[in-house]
């Protein structure tokens, strides 16, 4: 259910295809902040009273759709009456009477008490005001026909007469203004537009230009709109927009020039340059033509405060391309390229105004100029502008932070590679940016993320893979063990310089993470003793984390969930697994129970791969976690490799003493062969690709072929029962 406060006559939706303009309306939060990518904080340059008009994916910045029509003035209304009635009347009582009590309660309150004059005036006013709620606070159920349209009017004849009487006989200006407002509004909803305008004009000079006055003015504007006198309507809306904080969004929503003619007439109604500037600002914001608006306002008054909002919006829009800035660092990316026409013309315009230096905040224009130059890869020009801005930027925390941030971005953007002197220059800046992440008063997230990425990329270009990795981790780094050792050495380095310390602190991968990773790799390559050594240096919590299923178990049909849910007398942690594997290896080497130990070791090696029930064994900081497709393709080969499992199952096969044992070993080998087939045909493993692709009924694994000779064993029959593919194979190959 929605309640409408002002009738939206201007909202005419047709279904024959109405495509909404420009701005994509998306919810903030799920898709990142509502301002997209940004390094330029609007509230540093523009008063927060205009914050709904900051550039945003939402309709109004910080608000999205403004549906606050019923309660917009509830608090201020209570406050104003409280001030009028004095301290003797508690605010809760006023609040109750204004916002909760119905007509009957108001009536009885009046009858009951013997109030003072002001209280009496308030209660009498309440009686009529509550009657007005019938048309001013209409509940609209979407699925009900709107009964407040023209023919189903609230008959306001009596009410309006009463309001008029009270208006003329009001005891003081405060109460009189309120009756006046109710009458203007009642006329708007229930009488003619002409009457609305007449009653507004008759009294408008009697009252101060407070919120109530602007609320009434907005109804006068609406009346003109009903008369299709767009020139006057839009002019008045611009006065509301300029004069009343609470109604700014409402005035914006209602502002709607139709033809050049009425727009020009609206301009002609302005009494001074400030009113004209307001109109141009509204055009520039609402109709996405900030450059034209800036030009017009600048010509009227270079010092107009209205310019800065337009500037910031234009910059916020233009900087969305920062998300792709220097992301592919080929040498060609560093040079200047032609930018698109509106970015070009914006930069020209801002340059011209920044050069003249005669705006209210010249430093804002200089900063913007520098930033736009950087985005167009004109780093030297940007630098020059920042130097200029430095001398006049106010010594206020956020303005200084904004400049410092922009300068850092430019210095880094301009560099091709990172050398010692550059490190020295950047170190304090990056450290400052890092520590500023908690500071919400200016936008710095995107800058920090970008800085990390670009430092990494440029270190790589300079040949320093380790520092690159610390700034921005990338999985491919860890595939080569020489990299891993180099990083370990760096993290471990004694007597680090302050900068090196800082770089280490940035690394998301710590020493313990590296040891854990190496332990997993070593184990998968069957180097158990070194694996144990490494795992002992991993984080204790990691080494001791319990595997969800029995890693030494194998099934005919892989079922990880079944294994996880099954009762386990002994649970194994990662380090326990390694110790057990070592035990088994030792026994095999000593020739003890080779078959059993080889099968069990083979099972464990199978289970710690992607295909097994112990994926958590390899899930760690470096490998990542959560399924193969959320892990980097760099690790795919390592995590799906069957060679160690095959090694042990083959060992078991050789040591088998009877057909049952041989059957089992062959079948387990078949599973490994199947997995290798999937590795080679990866696209069939991904359920999102090729749903209807031709998957064969079965493939004659070597293991299947060999298993056939053990048709007399119990195990063979179990496989036949549980493995449909084997069944098909035997049927087709009798």
């Amino acid at each position, binding site marked *: 259910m929605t309640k409408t406060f002002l009738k939206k006559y201007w909202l005419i*939706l047709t279904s*024959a295809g*109405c495509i909404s303009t420009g701005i994509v309306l998306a919810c903030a939060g799920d898709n990142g902040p509502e301002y997209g990518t940004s390094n330029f904080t609007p509230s540093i340059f523009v008063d927060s009273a205009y914050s709904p008009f900051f550039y945003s994916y939402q309709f109004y910045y910080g608000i999205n759709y403004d549906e606050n029509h019923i309660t917009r003035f509830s608090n201020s209304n209570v406050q104003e009456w409280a001030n009028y009635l004095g301290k003797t009347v508690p605010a809760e009582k006023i609040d109750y009477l204004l916002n909760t009590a119905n007509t009957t309660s108001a009536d009885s309150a009046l009858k009951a008490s013997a109030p003072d004059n002001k209280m009496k005036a308030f209660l009498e006013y309440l009686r009529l005001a509550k009657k007005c709620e019938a048309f001013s606070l209409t509940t609209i159920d*979407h*699925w009900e026909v709107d009964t407040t349209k023209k023919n189903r009017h609230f008959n306001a004849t009596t009410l309006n007469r009463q309001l008029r009487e009270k208006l003329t006989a009001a005891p003081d200006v405060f109460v009189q203004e309120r009756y006046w407002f109710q009458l203007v509004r009642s006329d708007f909803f229930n009488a003619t537009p002409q009457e609305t305008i007449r009653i507004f004009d008759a009294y408008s000079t009697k009252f101060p230009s407070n919120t109530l006055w602007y609320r009434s003015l907005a109804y006068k504007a609406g009346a003109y709109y009903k008369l299709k006198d767009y020139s006057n309507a839009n002019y008045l809306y611009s006065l509301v927009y300029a004069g009343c904080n609470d109604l700014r969004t409402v005035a914006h929503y209602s502002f709607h*020039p139709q033809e050049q003619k009425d727009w020009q007439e609206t301009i002609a109604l302005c009494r001074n340059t400030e009113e004209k500037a307001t109109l141009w600002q509204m055009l520039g914001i609402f109709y996405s*033509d900030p450059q034209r608006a800036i030009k017009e306002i600048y010509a009227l008054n270079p010092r107009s405060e209205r310019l800065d909002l337009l500037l910031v919006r234009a910059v916020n829009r233009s900087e969305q391309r920062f998300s792709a800035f220097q992301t592919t660092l080929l040498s060609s990316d560093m040079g200047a390229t032609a930018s698109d*026409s509106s970015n070009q013309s914006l930069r020209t315009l801002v340059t011209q105004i920044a050069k003249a230096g005669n705006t209210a905040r010249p430093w804002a224009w200089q900063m913007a100029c520098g930033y736009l130059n950087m985005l167009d890869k004109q780093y030297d020009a940007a630098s020059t502008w920042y130097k200029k801005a430095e001398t006049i930027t106010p010594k206020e925390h956020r303005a200084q932070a904004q400049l410092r941030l922009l300068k850092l971005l430019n210095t880094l953007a301009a560099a091709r590679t990172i050398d010692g002197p550059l490190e020295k220059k950047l170190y304090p800046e990056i450290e400052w940016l890092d520590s500023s992440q908690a500071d919400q008063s200016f936008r710095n997230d995107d800058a920090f993320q970008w800085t990390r990425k670009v430092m990494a990329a440029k270190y790589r270009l300079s040949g320093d893979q380790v520092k690159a990795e610390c700034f921005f981790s990338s999985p491919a780094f860890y595939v080569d063990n020489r990299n891993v050792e180099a990083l370990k050495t760096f993290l471990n380095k004694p007597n680090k310089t302050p900068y090196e310390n800082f770089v280490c602190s940035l690394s998301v991968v710590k020493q313990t993470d590296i040891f854990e990773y190496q332990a997993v790799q070593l184990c998968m390559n069957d180097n158990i003793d070194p694996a144990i050594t490494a795992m002992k240096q991993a984080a204790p919590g990691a080494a001791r984390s319990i595997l969800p299923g029995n890693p030494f178990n194998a099934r005919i049909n892989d079922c990880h969930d079944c294994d996880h849910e099954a009762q386990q007398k002994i649970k194994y942690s990662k380090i326990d697994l390694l110790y057990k594997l070592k035990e088994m290896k030792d026994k095999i080497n000593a020739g003890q129970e080779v078959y059993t130990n080889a099968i069990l070791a083979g099972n464990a090696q199978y289970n710690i791969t992607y295909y097994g029930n112990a994926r958590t064994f390899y899930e760690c900081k470096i490998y990542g976690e959560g399924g193969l497709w959320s892990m980097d393709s760099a690790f795919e080969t390592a995590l799906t490799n069957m060679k160690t499992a095959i090694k042990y199952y083959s060992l078991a096969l050789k040591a088998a003493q009877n057909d049952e044992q041989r059957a089992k070993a062959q079948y387990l080998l078949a599973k490994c062969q199947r997995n290798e087939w999937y590795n080679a045909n990866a696209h069939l493993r991904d359920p999102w690709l090729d749903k209807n692709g031709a998957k064969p009924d079965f493939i004659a694994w070597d293991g299947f072929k060999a298993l056939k000779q053990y048709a007399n064993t119990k195990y063979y029959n179990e496989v036949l029962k549980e493995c449909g593919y084997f069944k098909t194979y035997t049927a087709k190959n009798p």
Partner: protein
Amino acid sequence: MSFYYWRTVFSPDSVETKTLRENAVQKLYVRYFDVDWPPPDTTPAPVAPVHFETAPPVDTIIPVVYFRNRVFERLTPSTLPGFTAHVLALVRQISESHRLHPRAIQFDCDWTQRTKDNYFSFLRTYRSLSGNDVSCTIRLHQVKYPERTGIPPVDHGILMYYNMGNIDASGGSSIYEKNIAHRYTPSLRSYPLSLDIALPVFSWALLVRDGKVVQLLDKMSGNLFEKDTAFTRISQNWYSAKQGCFKSGYYFRAGDNVKVESVAAGDLLDIVEDVNRYSNHRIRNLIFFDLDRQNLQLYDKDIFKEILAHTD
């Protein structure tokens, strides 16, 4: 023949009523409301219900309700009955509050394979609850691929013979292109439902900025731009704004381009011939979209009679 009336306030002017009279039109298809269900909302809701300001100048009014496809994506078998009841109630309310008693209704929805079940279930339920004659719009792709999108359980369909192309800055018209239509019309032969045909007599323009369409300019025709000194014509149906300006409530930046799309009288005759040929003259009625002075002034006043004559 008849017309669609698609404005939120029902108030045909003298030009429009004259057209109805001169062509002996006895039936008007009036959009009652749209239904949409934008993602943040928890329920579907009607949009801009019609308000009758004058009595209809024809004998019969047939309500039309337009559904955005996403409504049926989000409805479930359990919420469908309640929704159907709401639609029926609102249709009845609108009719009763204007003393109308339609016995038929038309639904307009560009349904897909995914929403087919819900939509068809809605149609069936509505029909049995209301006892009305139920028809619905069919688009060309649904005629060509009935095995995918299904054949709706209605008494008859209305073939929507427009909006076949993409709305973009490319050469063709998004409203009607003969070669696009021809990809679909052969399928008319075997389509099992009996069909009326809805023909486009509207024009609109696309506001193109930096090669991309940023706004649909409804009902704006070439004439409007031709006469406006703020625009220069750059080719047959393209105009360019010389400076920033307002026009019909829209704002144009200097350098914005406008692509006007409309359907020539000759095209309309072609359409009828094609449809007759491919459907073996099985087309029942013509309905023109839509009755609006701004559309009517694009054509010779005898065009409708001429088109009708072509159906024989």
